[in-house]
């Protein structure tokens, strides 16, 4: 049930047990995506670019979206910097949303918000890999980190074309 964190030998008596809540929040998939974010970079022919920020912690995301003929998400990329939760959430989101219709994106957004905020609901299977973010619900201060990329994509759909900004804090 517990495992030892591999501690530096120079530290005396360093038995720092790993804690289940930490492992639940920072699942291996999340750490992997935060270290090696997917769909990270520029999208030169993007239709819309959204700059999102979380002023409470300085996290920033630049989201670029290209739509297909039917208005669905043909391609989506992000760049920026932030905590492991915000980076992994953005990375996982772009993988999940590529090729999805507007309606599917909006449905997914609502399901994801429920996933990271509601304590009781069963995670819908449709969320797939995104379900690794469920641990966030035990850390209310971190919900904004998880939602930053999703707020940006919501804004991208609303805006449709050009540039926009979005913030986790209402101005």
């Amino acid at each position, binding site marked *: 049930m517990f495992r030892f*964190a*591999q*501690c*530096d030998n*120079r*530290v*005396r*008596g*360093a038995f*720092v047990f*790993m*804690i289940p*809540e*930490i492992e639940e*929040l*920072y699942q291996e998939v999340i*750490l992997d995506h935060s270290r090696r974010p997917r769909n990270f970079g520029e999208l030169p022919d993007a239709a819309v670019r959204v700059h999102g920020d979380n002023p*409470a*912690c*300085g*996290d*920033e995301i630049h989201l670029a979206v290209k739509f297909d003929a039917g208005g669905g998400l043909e391609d989506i990329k992000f760049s920026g*910097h*932030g*905590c*492991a*939760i915000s980076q992994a959430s953005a990375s996982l989101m772009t993988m999940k949303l590529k090729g999805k219709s507007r309606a599917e994106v909006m449905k997914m957004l609502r399901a994801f918000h429920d996933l990271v905020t509601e304590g009781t609901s069963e995670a819908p299977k449709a969320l797939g890999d995104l379900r690794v973010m469920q641990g966030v619900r035990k*850390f209310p*201060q*971190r919900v904004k*980190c998880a939602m930053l990329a999703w707020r940006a994509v919501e804004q991208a759909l609303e805006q449709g074309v050009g540039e926009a900004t979005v913030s986790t804090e209402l101005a």
Partner: protein
Amino acid sequence: MHKIAANAIDWKAVRQDFPILGEQAHGHPLIYFDSAATSQKPRAVIDALRNFYEHDNANVHRGLHTLSSRATEAYEKARQRVADYIGAASAEEIVFTRGTTESINLVAQTWGGKFISEGDVILLTVMEHHSNLVPWQLLAERTGARLRFVPVRDDGTLELEKLSSLLTPEVKLFAFTYISNSLGTINPVAELCEKAHSIGALTLVDAAQSIGHLPFNVRELGCDLLAFSGHKMCGPTGIGVLYGRAELLDSMPPWHGGGEMIVSVTLEKSTFKKTPHRFEGGTPNIAGAIGLAAAIDYIEGIGRPAIFEHDSQLARYAAERLTELPGTRILGPSGERGALVGFVMDAAHPHDLTTFADQYGLAMRGGHHCNQPLMRRFGVSGTTRASFYFYNTTEEIDRMIEILHAAVRFFS
């Protein structure tokens, strides 16, 4: 001499005065390293609040009954206690406010409203807390005044050699922090005040991070105005102080109109009390002031020289031990520093680090610490800050280092 003072105190016994230090967080003994945000409260302060509400509670300066007399006496005694603590010439120079932020806003709005006009300059530093920046931005917007900033060197100290070119005759006020809440830098307050005065500017010192840590005397520092909060020095939240030289306060117009601050009122106009009461419209935080006086008594019982010695030793020890961690950058001066250390680690973002540490009972703060321009100056979006007070121990710092080692392994 200070060393003797610090060594003569049983710091482990002092911890017993703070009931909250027996708390657990996530099943671990609490390690509270967030005293720069707010300090914990000793039993003596908690008891003073309780005693007031159980035995003396009434409104001040108006009732002719016994309780009102007691409450008024305790409230005004607290004012005198604050005056003595900071070396003010008299209790009339002490205005009770809600805290540092309100104190600075009071000055910006009353003094600023009367004496500042287009073309004037308020000199600040890049290391100011938002509470000593935003009120001046609002004033500048209202009046057409300009803001100017003393830059910060890479080592976290002020670029003092720039001062003479920044302090031009348009500068009406130089407002700066005593100790930086992110860097731990201790600014040379007396020197800064002297330089500002030499060109006729007034000075305001943000003493939020020094008031409970350092012995100082406003008349020796030579500042005209000084602001601090009670809650960072073992006192309750919601009580703070604006100190101002008497003739300066007297020259400032009233702020919040209402009861308590007037002499007489007709339907057309009013006349106002003298300072400090003219700035204390409405029922003040009576219990807060009494709690603040109890906090001062408590701190003076230990002695500020010993507290400073102890706290800065902890901060230096923490800064030294943090260098053991791979990919860790410490902000702020390498030598003497206030009771805090801010750092960034390649392995993890400040919010991930503080979430991780919290699971082990270690309370630190991650983020911009109300210092967004300073964070930009150092090219970081935020830092992790461990801040200390006299109830902290080197053993707790050792534990922090163990937890941070575990975090490095976990996030790398």
